[in-house]
């Protein structure tokens, strides 16, 4: 119980949350998963997902990081780190390359949010679907994309995923169910609903995950998608990356609710708040929601609390927040550091193992960027390709 109190205090401090919360956790270091349900100092053991209802203000639940067990196979732990580290490094390279004038367009970096895409996508099958956002590199990497094609696309080269037509904001890889980044904030919700509908109709057991931001949660499409998915019991999982800012506006200045996950109440589906900087916590939350969806239980709404470390886009003057705020967040709550600390403390992985992964990733990245730089730009005739399947640019008067 004292541990619970500590956790509760921790959450309050970290997320400035003032109301009592549910929290869930797994007993540490045990073989079997034991779920506890914690609310207002009551602990209920062995509860189900979604949790049984107990007295208390049940708005949303919290999966607390830190008490989630590390009883993952070592390969899984390595995979977590590899993915998170790949995202971090890919983004750092993008940052440099953009500032060096090598990348056209806008680039929105995922630095600081790596645990979310990583934890969520680790629960997915290759043929499960995801829809992404303008800040989509992390999702794409976590779903298993080819770094070469990603880098080439971001450079606008013809060897890229979209043959250079999409760029950073429109990467997609249909072969791994990645249905596309989206330049329209909130444009992905309904695409995910449709993919989930298709999965349900075809009884494939696939699920569709929709990533979106705190700002996006105020788009009307959020509501229409949540309601339709819930009314039709579709295998969809809505994952909000609450990074505290929508471009330049701090979360609560434009968003009416303390936790985005509380909005789940309006659709009769589970709403889960999770520490988005703890890959284990994210994984467990996602796993429960994915299992529920696959079993025909319908959609869930997961809110992963995190923080956007970089500007909204590369080049953002960031007039709306202080350097200190950012520095403090990054120093005290970096998802990669969190992971390293945990696995090292628990002796699950060694420093050497982590470093080996880092080296491999760096090499892979070097190769990807070299590939992108060396690739040719699209030829002029490619302009009219890929519009219609029949390809009648002519008829429409180029």
């Amino acid at each position, binding site marked *: 119980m004292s541990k619970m109190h500590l956790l509760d205090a921790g959450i309050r401090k970290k997320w400035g949350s003032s109301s009592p919360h549910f929290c869930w956790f797994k007993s540490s270091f045990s073989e079997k998963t034991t779920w506890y349900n914690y609310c207002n100092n009551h602990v209920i053991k062995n509860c189900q997902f979604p949790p049984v209802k107990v007295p208390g203000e049940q708005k949303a639940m919290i999966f607390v990081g830190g008490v989630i067990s590390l009883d993952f196979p070592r390969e899984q732990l390595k995979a977590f780190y590899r993915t998170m580290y790949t995202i971090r490094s890919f983004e750092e390279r993008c940052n440099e390359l953009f500032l060096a004038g090598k990348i056209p367009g806008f680039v929105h970096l995922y630095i600081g949010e790596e645990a979310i895409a990583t934890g969520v996508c680790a629960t997915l099958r290759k043929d499960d679907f995801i829809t992404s956002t303008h800040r989509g590199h992390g999702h794409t990497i976590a779903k298993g994309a080819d770094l070469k094609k990603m880098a080439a696309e971001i450079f606008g080269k013809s060897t890229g995923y*979209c043959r250079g*037509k999409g760029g950073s904001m429109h990467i997609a890889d249909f072969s791994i169910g990645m*249905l596309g980044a989206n*330049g329209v904030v909130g444009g992905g919700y*309904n695409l995910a609903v449709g993919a989930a509908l*298709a999965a349900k*109709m*075809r009884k494939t057991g696939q699920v569709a995950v929709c990533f979106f931001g705190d700002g996006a949660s105020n788009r009307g499409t959020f509501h229409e998608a949540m309601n339709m998915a819930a009314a039709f019991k579709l295998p969809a999982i809505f994952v909000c990356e609450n990074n505290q800012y929508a471009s330049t506006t701090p979360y609560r200045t434009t968003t009416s609710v303390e936790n985005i996950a509380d909005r789940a109440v309006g659709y009769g589906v589970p709403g889960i708040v999770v520490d988005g900087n703890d890959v284990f916590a994210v994984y467990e939350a996602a796993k429960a929601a994915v299992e529920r969806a696959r079993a025909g239980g319908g959609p869930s709404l997961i809110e992963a609390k995190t923080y956007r470390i970089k500007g909204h886009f590369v080049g953002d003057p960031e007039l709306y927040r202080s350097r200190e705020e950012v520095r403090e967040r990054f120093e005290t709550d970096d998802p990669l550091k969190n992971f390293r600390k945990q696995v090292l403390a628990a002796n699950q992985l060694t420093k050497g193992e982590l470093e080996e992964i880092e080296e491999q990733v760096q090499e892979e990245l070097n190769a990807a960027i070299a590939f992108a730089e060396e690739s040719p730009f699209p030829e002029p005739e490619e302009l009219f390709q890929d*519009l219609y*399947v029949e390809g009648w640019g002519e008829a429409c008067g180029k």
Partner: protein
Amino acid sequence: MREITFAEATMEAMAEEMERDERVFIMGEDIARQGGIFGQFKGLPQKFGFERVIDTPISETAIVGACVGAALAGMRPVADMHFVDFITVAMDEVVNQMAKIRYMFGGQCTVPVVLRAPDGAARSAAAQHSQCLESWFVHVPGLKVVIPSNPADAKGLLKSAIRSDDPVLYFEHKDLFRMKGPVPEGEFLVPIGKAKVVREGTDVTIVSYSATLHKALKAAEALAHEGIQAEVIDLRSIVPLDKETLFASVKKTGYLVIAHESTKNGGVGSEVAAVVAEEIIEYLDGPIKRVGAKFVPIPFSPALEPLMLPQVEDIIAAVKESL
């Protein structure tokens, strides 16, 4: 040939394509329990179940967006927009998603979605339930746009639309649903992008489509009594435009009038006029006249509504002004 209504013809097209391909389904408001507000879906859920004929929430962005998503995941969805007036609600899904996805993603996917949208003024439904909005989509690369004027084309174009791997907007005029006409049974496809000369003539070309085509034909008949032989073309497809048929006729007659129900300003008539003035102006012997709705929202009063809409007399007058 047996005669059936326009609504039945679309039903037949739906049923045949749903039979033929289990990836085809339809969703929209009030289509299953009710059979569609114009009866155009009656009996369909009984044949294919409420899982393939889906009554949705009043959520146009979800209807269109989910159809696009389902298409990306391997289905061939048909969406019903209830009234075209509400396509405005899903405009982002139509323009920024449905139309662009294939190109933007470098041809990685196809987007076989059909969006059916009943349009047009019919008996004082007023400003928000009477519009024709097809011309906006001439301006949106990535879409195909069809708009039948009779039961046979309704069937043939809908079947082609459902089989198209590209997204198709299918506009159907409310006033046509009860129109009867001969419709081939079974397999019958009308190609997208092909106009039809529905009346041959030598003196002037009248281009029209959808419900207004019938006004154009009436005008042509009246003109024939005065010795003016009008050639009448039913565009059937707006994107792509069948310039071949259009140009052949204008080259023959030397005069061009375009008539449609939507607002004249910025209408399909503007595009047709511009294409002709750009590519074959030398064949013209007079001004290109456009007939369309007047430049106001559609008024409710039965005393005003007909004045706002283009009528047979307006087409006749336009032809005479052009000659």
